[in-house]
């Protein structure tokens, strides 16, 4: 393109030679495209003449001939533009240049990320931390953030918990797409390869309304490394090997950028581990085999751009063999014996019970900037999520067949406009349309736990941000979401009666199948979310944030429709058609000080949730196969209070210490009982020695203290067929407190001019401590993972 422009300049120059009447004028202004500010000192060059704009950005050119000229308009820090004008026809013209263009060409591999909100509690992890968890999972990496814990099923299925809340209350934005990967199940981890992210931000609460209105727990935002707008080719390969699990992972990424805005990116990860080991025994059948790849290309200019993104994720995860229990007596025995019932030799083989999940994500995005107005962007995305859960079943042939076979397809169109021309008033408006279909394959030979359904969502929002003074920013927003759930579900007639559905929901019945009803429940929800907050900075070092967020979340399919034996959990889970949306009111405050020498942050919050939906053990149900614990969904008003605190000190240019503490308490308003699965408080301390001159040497020692959760709901009394009497099932009793010591060290070496090799070694659980975590669903059956050595090599090129 540029070549032709120069050709044009040349030809026009010749054109000038054929002198004509040269008394034409051209005048106008040179303006910043982005915010409409006139640019002083901009130069307009043509035929060796240079004109400079005045303080108001105005210019005036005399003695032009009645012909076409090529004007080169420049301003410091802006990319020059060449514009051809026929002066015979035009006498005034405003030129637009873009200051912010430079941001596009920055190579941002690591470092600070921009805030997602101005007044809410939020924290981010950068690519250095992500690298350390290259062979782990998103949930593991996020635990680096104060107030984020995880709900585990073993060591490999890790669901993030933000300030005590997880599942459908935590929204995950993967590269601009809201993940739809069956987040409703406790043993369903996010289908994301952590290596696709350049940085991850966690907003602790529902304040980031543009992503969704139902994020009562919070939003996790994964953003990829941006391809810079310049001619460049770079990439990174990370290889990690772990002793515990005797496996590793390798992840590679390549990014090609062009000055004209085009870019290509490709990335891939493969990860394989065998059975992991607790200090005393092998945790049989806990292997994992994960594959991920992503590809994107497009054009990224300041004025407009588009891109196409596709990612694939597949994970085969073994579920601890000993955690498959047949009935209540097996569970009682497991809790009492404190020793897994099945311990086999180490193997890479993943047997039943296991999960196999696949996630495809495709996205098409377009954006355009309008001068002195803002940026309009629109995108379409498609997600396909497939989940198989294999169980130990009565015959060999049946065991080869998945017990759960679900297919979730989601189409979403999102469009939004961000008015950013006036930096003191920023507005964002947007809308989202979503269609989702779930198909439960009947060929499993097991009754569907989640029914077939169609779901339609519509959402609109407006958020604004205003700089009141240079130190005070206020923000606020409103969002409305409409959800319509249309399911086709079979109910055993005996269950339908036991749930007393006939009085309220008899209209739903559409067909009679002898022992069961086919029903067509249709539910509509109208959700309002709103937020308001303020940020105040004081003396540069201090920052205060206050935020109030109200959010409503419609029940997920599991909460509404679960009905039957969840084989992988050996429990009967019962949803309730009567469940309505929950409403949260959260107030959060942040006070922090950040200086070179030291800094601290104190972030208390109160989350009052009306009609909070929880799942708890209530009873046992007898059958010919024995007795199974029954877990039921129930709604209640709760209050969740908590505090996240941090402190860092740079004692010396080599030595620094970091401390963090988080605590959360959940209570039911009625009878003040403690909430189930609230993470125990934890206290982290780290000391780091850094010496940049010695190959970037870095060594740190970390101590993690997990308190015992002393606030938990009471246990239930159940009838044990084996003991022929009622016994106390200690299903809610939390395990003891524990203390882990970890170490990490790394060094950097230059390989040639551009390449860099980083070598790191991490030791987790140095003293091989035996422990169980309250939020690990396998705590009844086995100890958590023992000591591990992880060696990682990363090469930047």
């Amino acid at each position, binding site marked *: 393109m540029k070549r032709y422009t120069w050709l044009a300049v040349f030809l026009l120059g010749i054109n000038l030679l054929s002198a004509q009447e040269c008394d034409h004028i051209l005048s106008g202004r040179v303006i910043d495209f982005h915010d409409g500010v006139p640019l002083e000192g901009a130069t307009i060059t043509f035929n060796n003449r240079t004109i400079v704009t005045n303080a108001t950005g105005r210019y005036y050119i005399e003695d032009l001939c009645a012909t076409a000229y090529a004007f080169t308009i420049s301003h410091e820090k802006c990319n020059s533009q060449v514009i051809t004008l026929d002066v015979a026809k035009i006498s005034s013209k405003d030129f637009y240049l873009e200051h912010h263009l430079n941001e596009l060409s920055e190579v941002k591999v690591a470092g600070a990320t921009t805030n997602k909100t101005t007044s809410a509690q939020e924290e981010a992890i950068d690519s250095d931390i992500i690298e350390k968890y290259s062979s782990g999972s998103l949930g593991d990496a996020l635990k680096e953030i104060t107030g984020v814990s995880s709900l585990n099923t073993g060591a490999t299925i890790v669901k993030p918990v933000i300030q005590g809340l997880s599942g459908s209350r935590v929204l995950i934005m993967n590269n601009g797409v809201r993940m739809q990967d069956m987040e409703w199940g406790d043993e369903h981890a996010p289908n994301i390869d952590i290596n696709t992210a350049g940085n991850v931000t966690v907003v602790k609460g529902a304040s980031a309304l543009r992503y969704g209105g139902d994020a009562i727990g919070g939003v996790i935002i994964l953003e990829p490394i941006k391809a810079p707008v310049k001619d460049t080719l770079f990439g990174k390969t990370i290889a990690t090997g772990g002793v515990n699990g005797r496996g590793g992972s390798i992840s590679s990424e390549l990014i090609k950028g062009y000055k004209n805005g085009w870019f290509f990116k490709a990335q891939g990860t493969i990860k394989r581990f065998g059975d992991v080991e607790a200090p005393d025994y092998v945790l049989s059948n806990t292997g994992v085999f994960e594959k991920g790849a992503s590809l994107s290309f497009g054009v990224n200019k300041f004025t*407009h751009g*588009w891109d196409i993104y596709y990612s694939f994720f597949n994970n085969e995860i073994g579920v601890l063999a000993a955690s*498959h229990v*047949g*009935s209540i*007596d*097996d569970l009682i025995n497991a809790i009492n014996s404190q020793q897994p*019932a099945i311990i086999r030799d180490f193997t890479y083989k993943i047997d039943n019970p296991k999960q196999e999940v696949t996630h495809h994500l495709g996205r098409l995005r*377009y954006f*355009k900037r309008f001068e002195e107005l803002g940026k309009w962007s*629109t995108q*379409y995305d*498609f997600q396909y999520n497939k989940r198989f859960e294999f169980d*130990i*079943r*009565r*015959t*060999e042939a*049946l065991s080869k067949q998945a017990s759960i076979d679900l297919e979730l*397809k989601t*189409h979403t*169109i999102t469009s939004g406009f961000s008015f950013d021309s006036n930096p003191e008033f920023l507005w964002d408006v947007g809308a989202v349309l979503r*269609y989702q*279909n779930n198909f*439960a394959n*009947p060929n*499993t*030979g*097991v*009754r*569907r736990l989640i*029914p*077939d359904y*169609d779901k339609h969502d519509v959402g609109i929002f407006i958020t604004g941000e205003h700089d009141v003074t240079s130190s005070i920013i206020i923000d606020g927003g409103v969002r409305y979401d409409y959800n319509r759930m*249309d399911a*086709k579900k*079979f109910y*055993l007639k*005996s*269950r339908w009666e*036991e749930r007393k559905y006939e009085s309220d929901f008899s209209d739903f019945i*559409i*067909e009679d*199948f002898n*022992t069961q009803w*086919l029903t067509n429940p249709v539910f509509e929800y109208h959700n309002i979310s709103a937020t308001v907050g303020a940020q105040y900075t004081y003396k540069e070092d201090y920052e205060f944030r206050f935020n109030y967020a109200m959010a409503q979340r419609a029940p997920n399919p599991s909460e509404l429709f679960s*009905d*039957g*034996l969840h084989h992988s959990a050996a429990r*009967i889970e019962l949803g309730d058609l009567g469940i309505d949306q929950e409403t949260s009111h959260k107030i959060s405050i942040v006070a922090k000080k950040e200086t070179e020498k030291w800094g601290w942050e104190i972030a208390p919050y109160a989350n009052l949730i009306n009609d909070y939906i929880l799942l708890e053990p209530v009873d046992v*149900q*007898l*059958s*010919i*196969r*024995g007795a*199974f614990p029954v877990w039921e969904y129930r709604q209640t008003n709760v209050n969740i209070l908590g505090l996240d605190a941090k402190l860092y000190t740079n004692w010396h240019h080599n030595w620094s210490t970091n401390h963090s503490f988080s605590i959360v308490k959940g209570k039911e308003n009625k009878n003040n009982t403690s909430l189930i699965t609230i993470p125990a408080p934890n206290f982290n301390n780290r000391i780091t020695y850094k010496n940049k001159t010695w190959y970037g040497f870095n060594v740190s020692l970390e101590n993690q203290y997990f308190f015992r959760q002393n606030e938990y709901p009471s246990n239930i009394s159940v009838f044990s*067929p*084996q003991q*022929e009497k009622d016994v106390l099932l200690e299903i809610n009793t939390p395990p003891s407190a524990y203390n882990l010591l970890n170490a990490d060290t790394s060094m950097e070496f230059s390989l040639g001019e551009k390449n860099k090799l980083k070598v790191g070694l991490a030791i987790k659980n140095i003293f091989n401590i035996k422990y169980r975590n309250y939020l690990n669903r396998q705590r009844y059956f086995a100890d958590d993972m023992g000591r591990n050595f992880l060696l990682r090599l990363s090469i930047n090129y």
Partner: protein
Amino acid sequence: MNTRKFLSILTITGSILFMSCSNDDDNPKPVNEEELITKMSVSLVGGGQTINLVVVDKDGEEGPSKPEVTVSGKLKVNTQYSGSIELLNESKNPVDVISDEVKKEADEHQFFYVLASGLNITAAYADKESDYKKEDGTAFTSANPVGLKFLLTTTNAGTGTFRITLRHKPKKDAEGVVKGDITNAGGDTDIDQTFNITIE
């Protein structure tokens, strides 16, 4: 490609996808529950009488209704009964005979009998894996017990419980398992049912 063209294509594809997926007229089909066992009947033949111990769980392990347990009569003292077990899935038409499936995988299944100590009854296996044929028609060669057939010998009068458990993939080579001791058996429970019996 210019903006307008791109956007119109986007809108059209988007709406086609949106509509094409909203086609939900087909009703789902009920699941054919292959693992369900709705009935176990144990017949005890001896002393000139037949006693039936039956448990029926109409809605299976998923349903809320309790299994219905019936014992057809009282056992006699000092009598040997030959027992046999039949497992059925009566929710299917024709009825599925699950005990036939157990026979085909005899090496991976074993019944266990636990009798309350006050009863003074002994139970002994009366079959072995080699009595049954695999899916391919050939007989098993191993001689471990299965327990679809057993012998029950009564002595004194009394009342108490008789618990029958079927384990899938038990560790038949673990200590005591072939003798009928469930303690080290492991595996998965397919049936776990207790009957109250009387001997007079």
